[in-house]
């Protein structure tokens, strides 16, 4: 069932990022991270000593290509959220470099990051926490446009609401008047407003019900195709990543332990941690097969 390690490693190799030492990247790479380290200092526990240091990322190299749908999976504390905060320029790494479309973003001033704020947008997990409850949907969606000096913000809002499957009348209502799935549609509309090249989604469907989750995943797929987006999708749900992404990165303890085409990684995981993760994820098919086996063992046919 498991491939010999050598063979499997060879399979993943073509998809691996270019040599970490290389500074220049291929023209089709939109985000290139090299040796990214992020340390956090915990609050001190003693008067005499400084707080302990936590290494959230320990030297991550990652290339994301235009049009790629990259899934980042890992458990809590694996560093996946820290990584995407750095990629989005919301935080600075302790060491290493991150280039977006060839421009270094780790040491740039906020003012010079305007291109990043336009070209990379985020969708967060909790739509209730990421939408201002006192703003109307129109203002929420047009806020990034106003900041970028867009000439026809109002017209664009109608366009965006239509793209995410909400009625135009939604613009004059407040976030609390919508269900969880509809709120996530609003978050997506806001993210798409400045016509980004890269959409980073941090667990966008894990707070949603099953039937609504399928709707939002379909919407994301439509939008990624229609607007030729590069998608970075962070999730702890392996089946969602398998469905949505063409490439997957597995993170563990602040490191990328495996990377490759989604089907290869899921069918032939090479790293022991990936195997553990895949084995632990419950799937309906496996569970039902177990029920079947038990029923047969009990001599019950049906």
């Amino acid at each position, binding site marked *: 069932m498991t491939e010999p390690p050598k063979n499997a490693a060879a399979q993943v190799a073509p998809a691996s990022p270019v040599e970490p030492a290389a500074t220049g990247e291929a023209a089709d790479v939109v985000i290139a991270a090299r040796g990214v380290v992020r340390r956090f200092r915990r609050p001190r526990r003693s008067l005499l000593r400084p707080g302990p240091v936590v290494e959230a990322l320990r030297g991550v190299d990652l290339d994301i290509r235009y049009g790629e749908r990259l899934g980042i999976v890992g458990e*809590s504390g694996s560093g996946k959220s820290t990584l995407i905060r750095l990629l989005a320029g919301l935080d600075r790494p302790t060491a290493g470099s991150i280039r977006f479309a060839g421009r270094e973003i780790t040491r740039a001033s906020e003012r010079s990051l305007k291109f990043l704020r336009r070209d990379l947008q985020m969708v967060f997990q909790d739509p209730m926490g990421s939408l201002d409850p006192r703003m109307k949907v129109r203002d929420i969606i047009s806020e990034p446009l106003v900041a970028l000096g867009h000439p026809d913000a109002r017209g664009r809002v109608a366009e965006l609401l239509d793209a995410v499957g909400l009625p135009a009348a939604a613009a004059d209502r407040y976030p609390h008047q919508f*269900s969880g799935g509809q709120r996530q549609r609003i978050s997506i509309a806001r993210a798409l407003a400045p016509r980004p090249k890269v959409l980073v989604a941090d667990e966008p469907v894990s707070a949603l019900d*099953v*039937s609504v989750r399928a709707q939002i995943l*379909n919407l994301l797929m439509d939008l990624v195709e229609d607007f030729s987006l590069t998608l970075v999708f962070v999730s702890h749900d392996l089946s969602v990543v*398998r469905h949505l992404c063409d490439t997957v990165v597995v993170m563990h303890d602040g490191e990328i332990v495996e990377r490759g085409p989604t089907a290869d990684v899921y069918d032939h995981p090479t790293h022991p941690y990936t195997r553990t993760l895949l084995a632990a994820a419950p799937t*309906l*098919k496996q569970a039902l097969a177990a029920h079947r086996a038990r029923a047969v063992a009990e001599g019950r046919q049906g």
Partner: protein
Amino acid sequence: MSTAADTPLEASTPQATTRGVSDVLTVTDLGISVGPVPLVQDVSFGIGAGERVGLIGESGSGKSLTALSLLGLLPEGLRATGSVHLAGVADNLLGLRERRLAEIRGSLISMVFQEPMTALNPVMRVGDQVAEVMLLHRTQPSRARAAAAAVELLERVRLPDPASIARAYPHQLSGGQRQRVMLAIALANDPALLICDEPTTALDVTVQAQMLDLIVELTAERGTALLFITHDLAVVASVCQRVLVMYGGRVVEAGDVYDVFTAPRHPYTQGLVAASDLSLVDDRGRLRTIPGVVPGAGEFPDGCVFRTRCPRATAECERTPAWSGSPARGFACWHPVGGDQ
């Protein structure tokens, strides 16, 4: 069995015919309402000793309210009708005074909640919290004996080094460890019924798998009846033997997990199973969905609660569908999936 009823009242499900005297829990025609607005209606089911029953549904389906009503923990302003009988208690639990309920909670029925952080007392050592439930119900004669029993319980839920965990405060433990402590508290007095409300939703997959195994093992060991609430079909299939599917405050389908998930009869169950199977896509690579959104509480249509989103709905669905089949395997639908008998 499926006699068509004219009014919603008469349509109360024939599930009500209880499933035999051996049931630990028997719920008959449970209804929950806030003022005139019904939130849960006509819910009837039974759970036998050692049986594991799943209660699934999306948010707003009434599954958590159903669980809370069994414990007498409904929020203020909500009223429960019908009857809830527990083996060993003569009276209907819904009519009991708070004092009697307090004796039952934590001893005969206990519950593990979704949020292990808010359910534990942050300023009390976890060993004391496990011991407290035994002292309150006087199942251990002294503080010292209760403390020793608490350490044993922490060991039974497979916490490493239980003696030092007992001295720790909740914030010093991980999410998975806290949830194990919750389970230790819930099982401390060897309850007849354990209710778990989304106990693993906040946990990582590897921790979730261990926690689910533990729940199955410990309930099987003691013959504890389990009511397991979740929205995750894969979780319910790996834990439970039977499942109740709720939508809009009603049980729309019930039966063995295998039967319900492989051959669903209610269109809602069918939609739910299809939407959660992420390997099932159309030729454009899109997932199956249930059209529309779950209505808000009290905004469900009368008649069949699912008719506003149902692809098979007709004028007939404006009347509440009667329960078809047996209490153990049945559904409430005028136009069931898979053959119109």
